[in-house]
């Protein structure tokens, strides 16, 4: 991760990152063997920033983030290495008690499936109140309840007094995700992790939730880590993007540059697979092949079997490319031996 550190130093005397992840590796136990879910990744996030982590299912995006908060099952996930500096402490070195104080207070999470993420036998008001009271011993039941009502109205849940007394099954999917966001922002966290916040929702609701997330960010002024495979959502919300493939970061760039000129063939393929208005083709473009098994990774670049750029070159087959600056002095990082060749290709050249 020296590359990342150097890049950071080049930025000069900038502000300290809010959260700084270094050299994180996580394996998961499975029936087939140890899955190398996250392999030596590192990233920073700064106050007020929206950082998107993009990748297909199984690329390690959720695992990398849930590990930081100790939310992975201990009998499944093994943290092989890593540091995660947050407010002068290493999250990966904290005891359960200290970590619990961070969870839901300094860092909170919005989960993917609002249907399953609320306890079905407790009212929404109870569940939001709990998030408040667990971090504030002085908060009375009544005070936490009225704050819950305020929070619900902030995220645009109509009739919040009544809604607080209702159970999750009485909410629609979109309303439930709003309530989830309200619960996550209850303690004004400095960092909000949104794990596929719109995946389980239909398109019109997705747009509403994006608006709510924007509003939340304005309200709390905190940073957001947005985990998603939806590039539309990335374009809407993110400032900076990390692209993950097979447990590694393959590209890191500002959102505008990433969409304008991707510097990794995987990112390029992802962008090409987006359906476009005016496209005459009847078929959806997809990336041929599938992600390699993370139990037995291929030699060389993990993407080379599916890569349109590799042309079966020896370098791609034998050497795993490091994440490095695309041009010297650039903040853009890419893990491709031939990232410069992408300049010559037109992204819309189909």
């Amino acid at each position: 991760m020296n590359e990342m550190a150097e890049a950071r130093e080049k930025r000069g005397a900038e502000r300290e990152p809010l959260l700084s992840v270094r050299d994180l590796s996580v394996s998961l136990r499975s029936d087939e063997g140890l899955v190398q879910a996250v392999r030596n990744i590192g990233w920073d996030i700064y106050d007020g920033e929206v950082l998107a982590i993009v990748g297909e299912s199984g690329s390690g995006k959720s695992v990398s983030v849930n590990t930081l908060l100790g939310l992975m099952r201990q009998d499944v996930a093994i943290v092989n290495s890593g540091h995660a500096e947050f407010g002068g402490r290493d999250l990966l070195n904290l005891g359960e008690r200290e970590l619990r104080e961070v969870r839901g207070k300094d860092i909170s999470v919005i989960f993917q499936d609002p249907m399953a993420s609320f306890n079905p036998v407790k009212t929404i008001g109870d569940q939001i109140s709990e998030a408040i009271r667990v971090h504030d011993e002085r908060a009375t039941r009544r005070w936490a309840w009225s704050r819950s009502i305020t929070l619900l109205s902030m995220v645009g849940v109509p009739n919040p007094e009544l809604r607080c007394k209702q159970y999750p099954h009485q909410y629609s999917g979109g309303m439930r995700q709003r309530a989830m966001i309200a619960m996550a922002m209850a303690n004004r966290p400095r960092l909000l992790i949104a794990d596929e916040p719109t995946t389980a929702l239909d398109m019109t609701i997705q747009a509403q939730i994006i608006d709510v997330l924007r509003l939340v960010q304005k309200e709390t002024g905190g940073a957001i880590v947005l985990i998603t495979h939806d590039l539309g959502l990335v374009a809407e919300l993110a400032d900076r993007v990390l692209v993950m493939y097979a447990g590694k970061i393959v590209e890191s760039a500002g959102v505008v540059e990433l969409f304008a000129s991707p510097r990794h063939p995987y990112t390029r393929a992802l962008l090409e697979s987006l359906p476009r208005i005016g496209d005459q083709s009847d078929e959806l473009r997809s990336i041929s092949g599938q992600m390699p098994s993370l139990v037995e990774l291929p030699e060389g670049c993990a993407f080379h079997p599916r890569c349109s750029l590799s042309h079966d070159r020896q370098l791609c087959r034998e050497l795993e490319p490091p994440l490095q600056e695309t041009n010297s002095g650039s903040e853009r990082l890419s893990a491709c031996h031939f990232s410069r060749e992408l300049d010559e290709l037109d992204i819309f050249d189909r």
Partner: protein
Amino acid sequence: MLSYVGRRLLISVPVLFGILGISFIFVQMLPGDPVRALMSPEELATASPEYIEQRRSELGLDKPIFVQFAAWIGEVLQGNLGHSFRRNTPVADMIFERIGPTAILAITALSIALIIGVLLGTFAALKQNSWFDYLSSVTSMMAVSIPNFFLGLMAIYIFSISLGIFPTGGMRTLAASNPSALDRVHHLILPALVLAINLIGPYVRYTRQSMLEVIRQDYITTARAKGVPWMKVVFGHGLRNALIPLTTVIAIQVPILLTGLLVIETIFSWPGLGRLTFESIMGRDYPVIVAIVFISAVFVVLFNLLADVTAAALDPRIRL
């Protein structure tokens, strides 16, 4: 919620009526002649067939079976469960005086079994595949497998006769005219424990199963992500969800509890319905048997109702 309870009650009525009919028919099919059973051997040796017929018609046993059944239902609806053949007292009175001791024993045993079973099952699930998990599985399996009469006799032999810690039976010390509450508890512990041991097994297994499923749910991760301590997550969020399927298991187990009562009350000379059942079967006291079968059916139906209502109280999605 109230309309839910009302609906469940209405559904219970035909069930009760059906059980009433079936149990009456079964009892009619029992071997043995109640008239002869009522007479002492000397009386029986000297009695003329006419005298026996006369006794039979006095008891209404010569009437067609449907008439006997209809007459019985009519009486039951008025709270009259008939007269005992053997004791010439109203069956309702006999049952009424026995129901209290049985309720005390049953509720104590059920509470012990539930508390221990749910706790064991919960921790077995939390420590899945640990030595504790295996130990609790093996123990609860053994607890189910040992017949309760054997367990009862062993308990009496070890704790009452050899060690002398607990009394061998009864509800209170007979010599004491006004026994203390402590004395009653002292008598209650052994039979209640023996009865509970037979019930614990399924509670442990179902709680474990249910808890294993629940703690993998997303809302458990949500609660942890809020910073709630793990034990509070387990008991505050997990347990209530895990108990919902357990209510059905408890209801299904009620017949096992009732037969357990029959054996345990007999062994421990507990003056309850179970021992009355045993005595009545031995004496072919038909009205008492039919009444007890009916009461048991009422209990089973009531407990099922209670289980449904409890499930609805635990789970807002059922209250529709």
